[in-house]
């Protein structure tokens, strides 16, 4: 499986010099909703101000009160920690074509980005969504902050299995119900789903003040339509629908046109909403994709 590559030392060395391209808040300011704001909690003192009724007495500076007989409140600089969530599509479509190992590529990308995200001691987790017994299930790993604990992702990543239809909207609903502070959500999916579903899901992530990045994953065979020629019954992995199709050069060209159309639609929506979008077509492109495509698109720098 391709996701094992993300835990190889040689591959991780190449990721050591990458950092995620995000904008962080520098200080805590009352009423300002900036990425990384932590409600004034932190360990680095920033300033003093006069005590007002209702202030938390834990932050009262008792030494000042003893010396000056004035009530003062200490304020702190907020921690600049950002939460990263790698939201991986584990629907049944990610398992086909089997030789393309789309799910392996998606998990490898998610793990690699998690490793990059941990470079600044940010909280990082990997979440995968799939249909289990008719219900959408969002499996999420714990948050990890230090690269020493990066290998803790490995059991979670190895246990992810595909199943069911793609329900990106339902997955985003589950994610938002966790009521985490706004952070960075990187959606990794083949986006072989209705346009309204993914557009609605991405719009809701933006509405929740998340910084959203999208990576569209497709296999080499399905993106080029390079199926062996002949008459086949093709079965949709998610819906089970069967259709008879003649594979050949014309069908391959038609498949490529369709893939371009679908990818263009996703890209157009992301561009319109200011979402960083990139494509990862083909599992063999993992290293070059991490080293060249992501920096070029601003996902990492």
């Amino acid at each position: 499986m391709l996701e094992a590559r993300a835990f190889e030392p040689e591959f991780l060395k190449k990721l050591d010099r990458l950092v995620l391209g995000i904008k962080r808040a520098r200080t805590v300011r009352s009423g300002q909703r900036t990425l990384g704001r932590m409600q004034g909690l932190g360990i680095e003192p920033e300033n003093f101000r006069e005590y007002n009724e209702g202030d938390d007495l834990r932050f009262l500076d008792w030494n000042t009160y003893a010396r000056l007989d004035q009530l003062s409140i200490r304020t702190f600089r907020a921690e600049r920690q950002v939460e990263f969530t790698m939201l991986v599509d584990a629907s049944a479509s990610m398992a086909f074509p089997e030789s393309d190992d789309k799910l392996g590529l998606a998990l490898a990308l998610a793990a690699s980005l998690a490793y990059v995200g941990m470079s600044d001691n940010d909280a990082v987790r990997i979440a995968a969504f799939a249909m289990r017994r008719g219900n959408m299930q969002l499996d999420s790993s714990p948050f990890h902050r230090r690269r020493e604990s990066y290998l803790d992702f490995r059991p979670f990543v190895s246990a992810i299995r595909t199943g069911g239809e793609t329900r990106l909207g339902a997955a985003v609903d589950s994610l938002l119900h966790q009521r985490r502070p706004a952070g960075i959500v990187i959606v990794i999916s083949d986006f072989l789903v209705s346009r309204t579903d993914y557009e609605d899901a991405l719009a809701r992530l933006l509405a929740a003040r998340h910084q959203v990045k999208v990576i569209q994953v497709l296999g080499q065979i399905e993106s080029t339509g390079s199926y062996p020629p002949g008459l086949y019954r093709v079965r949709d992995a998610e819906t089970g629908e069967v259709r008879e199709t003649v594979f050949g050069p014309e069908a391959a060209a038609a498949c490529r046109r369709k893939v371009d159309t679908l990818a263009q639609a996703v890209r157009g929506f992301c561009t319109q909403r200011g979402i960083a979008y990139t494509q990862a077509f083909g599992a063999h492109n993992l290293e070059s994709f991490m080293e060249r495509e992501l920096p070029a698109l601003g996902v990492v720098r």
Partner: protein
Amino acid sequence: MGFLNPINLLWAAALVILALIYLRSRSRPTISVSSLMLFDEAAAPVTRVRHVRIDPLFWLELAALTALVLAVGGLYAMVPARAGRGRSHALVFDLGAGMGARSDGRSGLEEARKRALGLVDAAPAGDEFSVITYALEAQVALPQTQNLDAVRGAIHALQPLAVAAHPSALSAAIMRGRGSSEIELFTDRAPPARALGDAKGTTPLHLHQTEHGDDNVAIVSLDPGAVGSSRGRAVLRNFSNKPRLAEFQVKAEDREVFHNTLMFAPREQMVVPFGPLTTGGLISAHILTPDAIEADNQHWVYAPANQAGHALVLSPDSAVRDDLARVLLAINPNLQIETADPAQFSTQKAGRPFDLAVMHDCYLPGISTASMLLIFPPPVVPPAARIPGLVVSAKNLPVILKPVHDMPFSVGQSTILPAVRGMTLPDWMDPLVEGTTPGESDLVPVAAIGRIPSGRIGVIAFDVRNRLLLDADRLDALVVVINLIKQLTAPADIQVVPTGAYVDVPVAGSAIVTAPDGSRSQAEADKWSRVRIRPLQSGHYAIESGTRIVEVYANYFDASESDLAPTRAATLSPAPASFAERSSSRAPRQVQPLLVVLAGLAMIAFAVESVVLIRHSALWGTGHV
């Protein structure tokens, strides 16, 4: 044979596997893709995938092998049976009273006999016949046999009975004839569809409906009235659609008390009063004008003579003693009644023997009486009791009275008796009235009577305290008591029963039974020293045992059976008169193996396959395929 044979089943399974392998090899490869939306613009095939392509050679081969497997396994079909080759016939005769109806000097049974004998005479050699009769119940008069003389003898021996033919008996008779190739049903009326059951679907059933006129006047009932006080009355009915004259006579102990010629309108029922009778005893009524059915032209009833008698009433409750004494006086005003508390009654001080002893909630052995009535009997009976086999429980339960079929009287449906003791009756007692406890469906006896050489014993299980016998809402309880007392006080040597009912006569040793037609037969007593007979002819039976003779008079009347108005055969068409006509019209069908047909089909398939192969070899220029 058949596919229950493992070998044959193996052949069939191999054939199925062969077909599946072929179909599997012909099926299109299926690949799973992430989404069909990627193929929206890809070209679809011109025609749909065909799993079963036209491959004549394979399908011919498969058809031939299938035919051979079916032939080996055994495929059967309903085909006409060949006449004269071991066919069996069940001759089913209705012996109800209607078959004895005479028209133009011949009865329906005689006509049926003639038709049946015609069928037997015309039967091809090798055919078998059985003779089955039914009225109250079905009986096989002669099992399946090729001995045509025995068949003719059994047919000649058939006699009509003075009972109604029950549909359930017809069903049972047809069930017994279902093993035959054909059933010949001889009856005077159309059988109900439900009585035929599913016999019509499996065994051909031919109806031979005899015809008779509707010229019948019957005595429906006879009530003697109270001797010396109230008039008796007879109810007669004309079942004919025409006016009828009937000469009617009533006799009391061979003395004529009424004689008149009655004019009946079509289907009129007439009540004929007579009397009052001056003396009691056996009353007989006769229609002297001959008509179709003789059995319902005579009727008997016993008029209590109201002779002076001596009765004893024992009860710990004085109110019950008063009530029972009133009931006894209402039945026979000439009774001398002695009442007592059982705790203060001494059997030694009793004088002459009693004609009837009524004991309520007590039992005193040693009382000399001809008949005994136990009401609400105590659960503990002394070992010296003269009621062998009767077990009474101490538990009192409410009971809802139910009517008892084939009993001289019946009670209403909804009477609830508050306290009834459970009884287990001995074999020699017959339940007269039964009931159910609330919430239960099992019937429990409420009233019963038994006759043994030592006398007649009646048992009533419910308590009559709290003026139960005078309760207007529980008149059925009073009716039960009165009827049972009447049976207990009736003469022991005369019994009047309906035909078909069982009659128990206490005898010593064996007895000679003389039937109304004069035939005599010997009957052995059972372990209770009783002879049990079932009168199936109307008239006088005499049971002689030693010096004692018990007279049994059997009355017949059944409104449906005596009604001889023509009934149409709505469910079955009349049967052809002979087997020759029948074989030309509709032959019976039997299951026959299709071995030859299937083998022929297999050969044809192989031949066509060979022709196809030869054509292909000629077309391709090859020497062999």
